[in-house]
């Protein structure tokens, strides 16, 4: 496990609903992120992807399981050590404007982590901020502007600069481009790709949109109702999704192409109905209520364990894993993404 940036084992996070009912938001999830690796975590509302990320930084407590972050076991850290560790694991949020203090100017916002963690003096700070602004493509003259005076894309660049200024080991991006217009979204995705390549920083990239995740991730994990249902290298996941839910998500990527109607019908077949309530999860496989392949035995009785689909030649943890009782018998849907040229 040495060299791992983040290693999560059998993580369980339980919450209480507003009327006191307990529910399990993350249910026995494991994942590993290596140095410089980008892990894309996808799933729909309530699947636990954001909770998992927050628990990995211990921003939310977890009930059981183990998290090793930048080589440290979170269970062994006191509050001071935890804060010190977290400054190397910043977050980038969905709503760029809402996550920036409206009273501060751009320079101060970007330099704030250096000040809070006492990492640089005032003069050094300003130089570092300007360097960072150039890196993320913010013109120098914006240094004194306030967030409201910036466009959405510029605001998100400020969020990215602030995240990267502490030379992080892991950056957690929670839906970083969902609030942006299409033409601006592409600019930010390219920027994140450049930064990933240049800075060799690891990313945990959370999104509901598989198409976005596909652009940036080395590995992708799919969560559903608190569980990891499939995990694979990015090309493998899109070309050969094994779990019926992943197949539905891949088919649900709306392409600017003909045949849209057939794809919608395929999605409806693979992902019928709606996500059940976390307060009353189904017995057995979490997906059995929507799955076209579900059988009474074992799907409605036994929770499927993650099985290895195909290991890579080097035998490292690069494998394709799926948690489905029937994955080996499920036919490949007609509409999946074949690997590109």
């Amino acid at each position, binding site marked *: 496990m040495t060299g791992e940036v983040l290693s999560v084992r059998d993580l369980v996070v339980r919450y209480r609903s507003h009327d006191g009912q307990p529910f399990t938001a993350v249910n026995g999830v494991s994942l590993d992120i290596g140095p410089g690796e980008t892990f894309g975590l996808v799933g*729909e*509302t309530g699947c636990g992807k954001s909770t998992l990320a927050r628990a990995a930084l211990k921003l939310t407590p977890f009930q059981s399981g183990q998290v090793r972050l930048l080589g440290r076991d979170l269970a062994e850290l006191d509050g001071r050590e935890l804060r010190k560790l977290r400054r190397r694991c910043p977050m980038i949020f969905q709503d760029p404007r809402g996550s920036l203090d409206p009273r501060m100017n751009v320079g101060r916002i970007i330099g704030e982590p250096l000040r809070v963690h006492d990492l640089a003096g005032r003069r050094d700070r300003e130089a570092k901020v300007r360097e960072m602004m150039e890196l993320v493509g913010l013109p120098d003259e914006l240094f004194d502007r306030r967030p409201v005076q910036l*466009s959405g*894309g510029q605001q998100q660049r400020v969020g990215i600069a602030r995240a990267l200024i502490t030379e992080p080991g892991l950056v957690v991006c929670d839906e970083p481009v969902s609030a942006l*217009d*299409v*033409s*601006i*979204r*592409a*600019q930010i*995705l*390219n920027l994140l*790709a450049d930064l990933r390549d240049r800075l060799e920083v690891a990313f945990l990239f959370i999104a*509901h*949109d*598989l*198409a976005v995740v*596909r*652009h*940036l*991730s080395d590995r992708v994990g799919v969560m559903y109702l608190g569980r990891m249902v499939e995990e694979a290298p*990015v*090309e493998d996941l*899109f070309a050969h999704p094994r779990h019926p839910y992943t197949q*539905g*998500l891949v*088919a*649900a*990527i*709306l*392409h*600017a*192409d*003909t045949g*849209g*109607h057939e*794809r*919608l*019908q395929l*999605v*409806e077949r693979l*992902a019928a109905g*709606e*996500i059940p309530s976390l307060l009353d999860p189904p017995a057995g496989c979490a997906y059995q209520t929507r799955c076209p392949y579900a059988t009474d035995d074992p799907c409605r009785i036994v929770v499927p364990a993650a099985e290895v689909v195909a290991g890579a030649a080097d035998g490292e943890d690069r494998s394709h894993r799926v948690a489905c009782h029937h994955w080996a018998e499920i036919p490949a849907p007609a509409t999946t*993404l*074949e*690997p*590109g*040229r």
Partner: protein
Amino acid sequence: MTGAGTEAGAPPLLEVEDLSVSFNTRRGVVRAVDGLSYTLDRGEALGIVGESGSGKTVGSLSILRLFGLFDDVTVTGAVRFEGRDLLRLSETEMSRVRGGQIGMIFQDPLTSLNPVMPVGEQVAESLRFHTGASRDAARRRTVELLDRVGIPDAANRYHELPHSFSGGMRQRVMVAIAVACEPKLLIADEPTTALDVTVQAQILLLLDELRREMGMALIVITHDFGVVAATADRVLVMYAAQPMEHCPTDHLFQRANHPYTEGLLRLVPRFEHRAHKRLRPIEGQPPALTEPIAGCPFEPRCTHAVDRCAAERPPPVRLGPSHHSACWLAEERARRETAPDKPWEQP
């Protein structure tokens, strides 16, 4: 494929002619829609695509004269629905059209539904107002409608309040209200943007089925070409309050002409893309709508722009029976040897 051509003699269902809408705000006059024209036949589906501030929503809500809280609004042009100019109707006449002959669905079902009224009654209310149905008849029809749009156990869920429904189920209720009076036109403004992707597919499929069953025309307003591909016969691309390109949907993916359309299409996921493919974004920002624009609004971001583009506004150039592109280079671009049949490929 329903083309733009109309049957001889019969007027189109909807004819929008040189529609302009501007809001007078403290910061000056904001031109939200500038010179929008299109026609829509019975049963036809049009996708209106654009980014924030493109005028796609205001242009469509103007059909229903819904301007939100703005009362200081200037509207010019004409919106003829079955030959009647809706901009000239009285407020009473207009209220019969809204929800009756023209239904609408908005992005956020929670704010569009009355939170303290059972969902069934919200559907029945519309039926009784527009069709004069009795209480019992309206209730029976409502249960049928809720069942048709995919609400399980519709008869019992009739009495529940919107908050006990999921986002997808609320949007189904909105669809039931919108189609209750069998409108001739349904306007759906970002109908699936707030929904999860698998539920989005279900709702788009439902809209498509209902359109065919009821013979409704449909206007889908969206930022997503994927939504257009799945639901629309024709597409109108808007940018900075102006129409840029208007063509059949299958033309769009093979013969997109306008540089802005081409730029957007490069950013849409495609089967042919490999993962980690580098995107070619449209550099720069859209213009402020408070500043006057002499030429083409896309000129500052356009990599093909010539001198004329900044000086004169390009008129829509006709490239085919139902294909128009507002670009000075439209004809030249249409003749290109290497037609942009794969505009998403790197040069």
